């Protein structure tokens, strides 16, 4: 546990010192969503109808874009090998990395969503559900994304490859998250979808940690 906190502090300190990275992800997220009113027209009704899907698809893309910095820097300068050599299990390192990734991408994306809800004419109760789905769903994105990021270490054109590996695995999260917000906006119960998102998150914790650790081990060999 102390190891986890140490690693997490290291990651967060690194992220803060290179603060522009996290802001760039949020910038991409907001800008990409703002493009859609130009693409599909400014009618408030249509925008409100597609808003949950837009926010979520762009959150997926933004979270994916930030994945390559998860392990790549440590892999290139050799510190990954030193981190693997420490006595703590590799899963602890992965857990710290994933937590830091979520704190520097998932959380800022959530913080930016209310602004987008205003732009897209989403009403307040739907925004509440949207934020809940983001809170439960984005950690899963970080966990699954960590597996992809660890697998492509040392590959040619790893950045493009990640999208091909990770996006199909993101589809269930997208479906249930948007389903919850859609159900809420039509006045149906939406806690079931949220519960499934939570279940996927709980399943992704062991799978993501274990698979990422295995991939890192092979990458450092």
């Amino acid at each position, binding site marked *: 546990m102390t190891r986890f906190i140490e690693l997490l502090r290291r990651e967060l300190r690194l992220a803060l010192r290179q603060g522009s990275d996290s802001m760039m992800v949020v910038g991409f997220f907001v800008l990409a969503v703002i493009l859609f009113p130009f693409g599909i027209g400014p009618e408030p009704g249509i925008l409100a109808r597609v808003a949950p899907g837009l926010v979520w698809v762009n959150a997926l893309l933004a979270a994916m874009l930030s994945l390559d910095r998860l392990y790549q820097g440590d892999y290139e300068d050799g510190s990954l090998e030193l981190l693997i050599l420490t006595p703590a299990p590799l899963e602890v390192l992965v857990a710290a990395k994933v937590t830091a990734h979520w704190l520097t991408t998932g959380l800022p994306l959530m913080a930016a969503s209310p602004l987008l809800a205003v732009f897209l004419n989403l009403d307040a109760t739907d925004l509440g559900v949207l934020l809940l789905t983001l809170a439960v769903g984005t950690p899963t994105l970080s966990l699954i994304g960590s597996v992809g990021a660890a697998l492509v270490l040392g590959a040619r054109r790893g950045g493009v490859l990640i999208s091909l590996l990770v996006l199909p695995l993101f*589809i269930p999260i997208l479906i249930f998250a948007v389903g919850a917000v*859609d159900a809420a906006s039509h006045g149906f119960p939406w806690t079931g979808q949220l519960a499934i998102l939570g279940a996927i998150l709980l399943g992704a914790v062991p799978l993501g940690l274990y698979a990422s650790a295995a991939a890192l081990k092979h990458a450092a060999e």
Partner: protein
Amino acid sequence: MFGLQNPTKFLKFAKLVGPWLGGSTILLIGSGLWFGLFNSPADYQQGETVRIMYVHVPSAWMGMFAYSVMAIASAIALVWKHPVADHLARGSAPLGAAFTLICLVSGALWGKPMWGTWWVWDARLTSMLILFFLYLGYMALAGAFDDPERGAKASAILAVVGWINVPIIKFSVDWWNTLHQPASVTKAAMPSIDPAMLLPLLLMGVGFTTFYATLLLWRVRAEILATRIRNIRLAQIHAEGA
């Protein structure tokens, strides 16, 4: 497993079994095509287009079967480090991707006259499309490393993670589709299948399986030989350097 994890024994086995598998493939698919095209009734609703089924359905089966073979072989390769299991997984991927693509294309060709459109976001179609992308990701990752060993390990992990996710994706897509557009396919689904149609379908199903097995044996043989050539070359280079 019968000593087949030894590449030399596997090569012997492949030499012995390969011709039998190939021969039965020709017989099964040949007879299946004959029954399917000439000696089975046309559907009372769908007419002659129903014959697309004899290619479409077996290729869908094989698309899913090949993914399971790939994932199980990957898990075996990760746990026991059998070299042949690695080759099996890598050889299975392009075959499965090809079957999935055949399934999607034949489905589109069938869908145009039946539903009036090339593509509907039906749960089954969508799952097959996602499966196709899972194959593409696997093959891209397996080929993305300069060291083939490393590619094999990374893609094996991906195959296992993907396999765990396949049921979740399937479930979510089913749920999504029933929410958005109910009953778009049930009108085209056959109530129950006529024995005269079932015979060619089963023949084609078994024929596709032996076809897949034949090609898989060939691919694994080629991969084993390619690895050997690579090792000989490396040894030569080392000998020259010394």
